[in-house]
């Protein structure tokens, strides 16, 4: 490859020829690095020699009684001529010693960003010469590869780029150690197709387009590394759990890091010019003493060096700036959940104001946040507080260089209920009468509850909505936060762990949103890793933390758990007698969920159980709750017969007007226990409007409660029960019809009570059969076993004869109430007698009771 000369066309982009100048790449014939080292050494030597020369000349001239420097422009001696030539040597030494990236390669260098702009704006571009966009490091690498490592190109390339810290960080981000990376490289050494001729052209052109599409400043070592990961190493990396998602995240991270570095440079240049006083540069503004006392000046913070930029919120920021700059006054309300990034958005606005990337009208303004809580705390009485608010608004309007931020305006309105209307009036008046620019923030809940009632106020605001970012955006934000946290906790985190954090943070903390809850989970994991003396936060650690939080196992299925899952039917049948169809349906759903095959936009599973009373519908629900969520207490039971009126809907989902049903029975319960089973008892009795609510729950896995909050049902199992057509089921079964035939004939009955689209939303509609005598006997035996357990806790042994269960079953079986009567029979025949003996002191700890028949209770 060292013989390659001239310009070769490698391809086209938008009909623009893409070429590579081999002569340029090959000009140093593999000695680029060595030459550079030599030049630097020579430069140091020359500078040292020059200084020595100047010192010697000065000393000699002083010894001769004259100071040579005073007559340096009068060149009457060879020494003086030499002095000037040595100056030239010094200049030349600078040329040799300075980083080539800054100058020598710059002669050939073109800005990639300029090319991107020209191509994007369809300007005429004659050609793309790849070598013009390669940075110093890449040129060094390619020179070496082309000339010295032709037969071992890929492994050597992997070794070369490992020299760069940025690449080392990227390897760590992928969750790999340097040793693992080196192991991958060694594997490659043994493979064919590692010759330079096979890879060099794809490398040059593809690395260029990686830099081009990501808008890097140049084709640098990271473009090469990304190319390596995306092309030659892609399959090998999969063996190390580095897949497409991790590589996309890596690309995003590199892109954001480069973008931020570029922005930081502009910021450093411009922030030093920004005044940090409260006055503007033209002194047209006036002092605002009250506001200074109760405020936080975002622009001053930025000018002092606090650089915070929100990632992927360009659209909201543009909307905000557009809204603020309108006319002489403006009012903008940012509505978003806590933790969605409202304050960061405001800080980003402050950065833009400082670097003057805003319309001219905002360039010499300050972004000041009114701290009304401080004002309230320091006010001796409510009148004083009102007057402070008034003064602040008046000062903000009068000073003319302030964009006033009222963070959590709903809290200001709600600070004291009796003055809410007056505070609203003050703000409304300020917005209406004064020429003032205000940016307020609120949560959707706060807006609905406290602001939306005041139409005079809401009509003045332009709303900017900040929704919870999508996982991939949240991931970028987490990546942005990561270096800060890593240096704080001295623990590293890989991209796949971050992906897991973004994903799993949805499974708990439903009151919070991304990125906030992701950052919290990340911090918690880092603290745990630090205390356990781990260097890495692993996916497993994240799964452990989340599992502990939600009480449900998350992550890879362990062998003992797998056994339980595969034998779920057996587990359920320990409590459920008969009802094989229902048990199988439920077990299958749980297995699907645990294997991660269920939709993440719907509940884990939903069932409609119908059949006679007392046949085990609720018992199945309880058993599933116990098995999947860890305890029966995790079941939310809703008696749907209480929701026969449409007006009762607000009892379920909450009432924006507050009062008795502010929270909503169902929505509050699910918010508190997002991992729970919801049992909707006697569903057929509910009002159709109430059932419409569940249409959305079953379909989308979420609803909005009365306060405007999104309530997620994606981690719930929903079981609706109905007793409709019980008699018909019994009759049809008596006619010896099969299970399927009966279900088919009974379904039209159910459709009379529940709309077809509602029934169809359930994953399975399961018919429960009436119990036969044998099944009731088995249930009786189970119930008696539970009596044994209860007494065993009191250290009393209870033994039943073989016929007792049959006796109980005979007494307790009722075709109408199923096995429901069993409990009463056991109470009357067993529990009552034992209770009497216990109270009378006839039996105590260590006693043995033998019951051979219900009439015969014997104490041993």
């Amino acid at each position, binding site marked *: 490859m060292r013989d390659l000369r001239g310009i070769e066309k490698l391809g086209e982009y938008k009909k623009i020829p893409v070429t590579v100048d081999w002569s340029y790449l090959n*000009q140093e014939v593999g000695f680029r690095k060595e030459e550079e080292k030599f030049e630097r050494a020579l430069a140091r030597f020359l500078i040292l020699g020059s200084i020595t020369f100047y010192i010697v000349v000065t000393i000699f001239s002083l010894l001769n009684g004259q100071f040579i420097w005073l007559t340096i*422009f*009068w*060149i*009457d001696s*060879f020494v*003086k*001529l030499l002095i*000037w*030539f040595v*100056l*030239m040597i010094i*200049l*030349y030494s600078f*040329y040799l010693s300075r980083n080539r990236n*800054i*100058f*020598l390669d*710059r*002669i050939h260098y073109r800005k990639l960003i300029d090319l991107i702009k020209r191509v994007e704006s369809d300007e005429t571009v004659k050609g793309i010469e790849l070598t013009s966009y390669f940075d110093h490091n890449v040129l060094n690498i390619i020179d070496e590869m082309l000339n010295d490592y032709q037969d071992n190109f890929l492994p050597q390339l992997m070794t070369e780029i490992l020299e760069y810290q940025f690449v080392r960080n990227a390897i760590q981000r992928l969750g790999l150690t340097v040793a693992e990376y080196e192991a991958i490289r060694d594997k490659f050494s043994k493979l064919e197709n590692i010759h330079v001729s096979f890879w060099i052209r794809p490398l040059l052109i593809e690395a260029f387009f990686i830099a081009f599409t990501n808008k890097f400043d140049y084709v640098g070592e990271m473009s090469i590394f990304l190319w390596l990961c995306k092309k030659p190493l892609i399959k090998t990396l999969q063996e190390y759990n580095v897949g497409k998602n991790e590589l996309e995240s890596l690309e995003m991270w590199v892109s954001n890091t480069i973008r931020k570095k570029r922005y930081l440079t502009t910021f450093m*240049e411009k922030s*030093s*010019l920004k005044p940090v006083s409260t*006055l*503007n*540069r*033209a*002194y*047209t*503004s*006036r*002092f605002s003493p009250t506001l200074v006392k109760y405020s936080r000046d975002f622009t001053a913070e930025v000018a002092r060096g606090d650089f915070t930029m929100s990632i992927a919120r360009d659209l909201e920021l543009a909307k905000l700036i557009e809204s603020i700059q309108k006319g002489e006054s403006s009012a903008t309300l940012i509505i978003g959940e806590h933790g969605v990034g409202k304050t960061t958005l405001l800080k980003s606005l402050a950065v833009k104001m400082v670097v003057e990337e805003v319309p001219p009208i905002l360039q*010499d303004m300050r972004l000041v946040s009114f701290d009304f809580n401080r004002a309230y705390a320091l006010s001796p009485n409510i009148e004083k507080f009102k007057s402070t608010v008034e003064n602040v608004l008046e000062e903000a309007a*009068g*000073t*003319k260089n302030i964009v006033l931020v009222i963070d959590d305006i709903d809290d200001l309105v709600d600070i004291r209920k009796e003055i809410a209307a007056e505070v609203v009036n003050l703000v409304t008046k300020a917005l209406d009468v004064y020429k003032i620019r205000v940016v307020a923030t609120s949560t959707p809940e706060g807006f609905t509850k406290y602001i939306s009632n005041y139409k005079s106020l809401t009509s003045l605001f332009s709303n900017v909505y900040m929704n919870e970012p999508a996982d991939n955006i949240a991931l970028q934000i987490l990546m942005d936060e990561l270096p800060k946290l890593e240096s704080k906790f001295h623990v590293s985190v890989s991209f796949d762990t971050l992906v897991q954090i973004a994903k799993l943070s949805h499974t708990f903390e439903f009151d919070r949103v991304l990125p906030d809850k992701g950052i919290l989970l990340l911090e918690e994991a880092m603290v745990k890793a630090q205390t356990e003396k781990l260097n890495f936060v692993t996916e497993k650690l994240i799964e452990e933390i989340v599992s502990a939080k939600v009480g449900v196992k998350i992550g890879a299925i362990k062998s003992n758990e797998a056994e339980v899952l595969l034998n779920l039917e057996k587990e359920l049948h320990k409590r459920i007698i008969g009802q094989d169809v229902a048990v199988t349906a439920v077990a299958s759903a749980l297995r699907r969920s645990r294997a991660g095959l269920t939709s993440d936009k719907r509940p884990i599973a939903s069932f409609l159980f119908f059949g006679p009373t007392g046949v085990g519908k609720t018992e199945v629900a309880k058993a599933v709750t116990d098995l999947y969520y860890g305890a029966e207490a995790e079941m939310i039971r809703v008696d749907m017969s209480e929701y026969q009126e449409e007006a009762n809907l607000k009892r379920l989902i909450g009432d924006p007007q507050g009062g008795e049903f502010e929270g909503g029975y169902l929505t509050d319960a699910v918010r508190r226990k997002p991992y729970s089973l919801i049992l909707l008892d006697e569903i057929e009795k509910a009002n159709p409007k109430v059932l419409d609510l569940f249409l959305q729950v079953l379909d989308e896995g979420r609803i909005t409660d009365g306060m405007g909050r999104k309530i997620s049902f994606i981690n719930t199992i929903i079981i609706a029960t109905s007793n409709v057509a019980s008699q018909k089921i019994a009759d049809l079964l008596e006619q010896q019809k099969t299970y399927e035939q009966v279900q088919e004939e009974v379904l039209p009955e159910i459709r009379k009570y529940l709309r077809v689209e509602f029934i169809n939303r359930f994953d399975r509609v399961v018919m429960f059969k009436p119990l036969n005598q044998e099944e009731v006997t088995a249930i009786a035996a189970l119930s008696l076993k539970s009596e044994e357990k209860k007494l065993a806790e009191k250290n009393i042994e209870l033994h039943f004869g073989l016929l007792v269960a049959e006796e109980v079953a005979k007494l307790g079986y009722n075709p109408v109430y199923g096995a429901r009567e069993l409990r009463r029979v056991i109470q009357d025949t067993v529990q009552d007698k034992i209770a009497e003996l216990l109270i009378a002191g006839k039996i105590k700890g260590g006693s043995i009771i033998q019951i051979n028949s219900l009439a015969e209770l014997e104490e041993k």
Partner: protein
Amino acid sequence: MFHLSKRYFINFWIWWYVVEHKIVLLKLIGVWMHALATFNVIPMLTNLFQPLFQDNTRMGRIIAFPIRLIWVLVGSIFQLILTIPLTMLYVIYLMLPLVPIWALLEYLEILVLFR
């Protein structure tokens, strides 16, 4: 040979008068602009007839104008004073690699400026 001579001789001049020249020039302009922003001349000039501190009274306006004018004048003088050394630095930068050539001519008495 051509490559080496280009690299060790011609490129030096390209570097000094193109690449490094741009960096130095931008640096000098940066210093000048920084001073301009520090002396606050432009905002004062564009608001020459505006009152100070929102004092919109007649007296406020009357007082503001001479203050702003003096500010602009003093600032401009400072700016001008700064411009001289910056220009000199720029000229010195441009001349520096040529000085040994001048020294040789002076030594050989071909070009005599200081004798």
